């Protein structure tokens, strides 16, 4: 727990420094760039999984795969966003943005996981 709190404090420090070193314009560009990169990389996988939903016997497996893929997409988006941001603002290369990727990715993944589990239970009850 102490370790997690320490990580949280460190990530807050990195975030404050990041806010000083970046502008709104580069932030918007890096977010849009990260969304584009994530979509281009993962869209084929999503489209393949969606078409597999015609196979009724693997529905639960496909829902779990979608959940894992979505969590993967979150981390990929976070990573791509700070990498692209560093191209616009070379100064932030010195910051430990991987810590932010871990912390923010984990929080969002936890939310997605809860939603996913609720969805699976609702689906299984429907069956």
């Amino acid at each position, binding site marked *: 727990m102490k370790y997690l709190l320490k990580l949280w404090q460190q990530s807050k420090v990195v975030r404050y420094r990041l806010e000083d070193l970046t502008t709104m314009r580069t932030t918007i560009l890096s977010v849009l760039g990260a969304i584009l990169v994530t979509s281009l990389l993962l869209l*084929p996988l999503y489209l393949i999984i969606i078409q*597999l939903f*015609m196979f*009724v016997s693997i529905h639960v497996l496909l829902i779990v795969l979608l959940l894992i893929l979505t969590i993967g997409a979150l981390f990929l988006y976070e990573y791509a966003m700070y990498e692209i941001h560093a191209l616009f603002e070379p100064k932030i290369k010195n910051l430990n943005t991987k810590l932010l990727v871990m912390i923010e990715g984990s929080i969002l993944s936890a939310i997605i996981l809860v939603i996913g589990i609720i969805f699976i239970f609702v689906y299984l009850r429907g069956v």
Partner: protein
Amino acid sequence: MNSKFKTIFHTAIFAYVYLMIALTIPTNFSVTAPNQSSTVNTFIHIDGKNQTSHLKSMSVLTMTRITGFGRMLYELSSEFDVKPLTYVESTLSQKEMNLRGQIQKNASFEQSLITAYELAHLTDLSVHINYKLTGMIIDYRTPDYSMLKIGDIIVDINNQNFTDYESMGQYFIDYDGILNLKVLREDKTMEVSIEKNDQAIFRFYPKYEIISASPSYSLPGQNTSLGGPSAGMMYTLSIYFALIDYDLIDVDIAGTGTIRYNGEIGRIGGLPQKIYGAHKEGIKHFLIPSSHYNEVKQLSHLIKLYPVDTIEDAIEVVMYEILT
């Protein structure tokens, strides 16, 4: 290193674009796949009656305008039916297809209730249903007749004041010339005139208003996404056996077939996929419309098939063939 990366990048981009085309561009094909069974008493519930959970209806999953990748994938499975779009499918949007599914399901509910209550009334006089014909609900019309919309209810033709569906439908089919229709659309009545031509295709279902029924019923199945008319026979059997308090059904019986206004069991689509679905669930008995028997008799090693012509046949098969 840089040159190697460039080569990989060029190749990957080509493969990526090719893959995305295969995954996104629709084709003129549709697929029908096996689905799970549904317990009929979860669709129609008769109040105060013990309704068996052993009667199952089978549905299929369908998708129109599948992608090239989908076509390749689905053709790998012998249980899937991949075929070119029918004329009807090719002239309708997905929204209209979904609307048709709901229209067919609701028509099936009404017809099943009327048929089952009337049959049960012959055994038990306390069972009764009071209803009247509202008109004919449009399930399909060729795009030339876009002044009529899918879901419109034709309540009268040329001021003939029909009281039964058969004579109304026959009049519509036989009459050549201009038809003056009184149409109910979203609770508003309007007059529409059409001139039928030889190429015109119309499909209707009877639309009834059920005024009262004893015992009362509820339709929890109205709120599900499953659509279509093919569970009509199984709905009717489930309601009928509940109304006459017949509680001897102790094996799972699946079936498919529409219920028509005259008690006949009508044809349906995707029958092989429904049989595969029932077989996977270990169901041993399957009722089918007899007109389909020759198309699926080669699957009778998977499951025992019972071809039936009318709802009376289906009742006899359940009571005296399956349960003996």
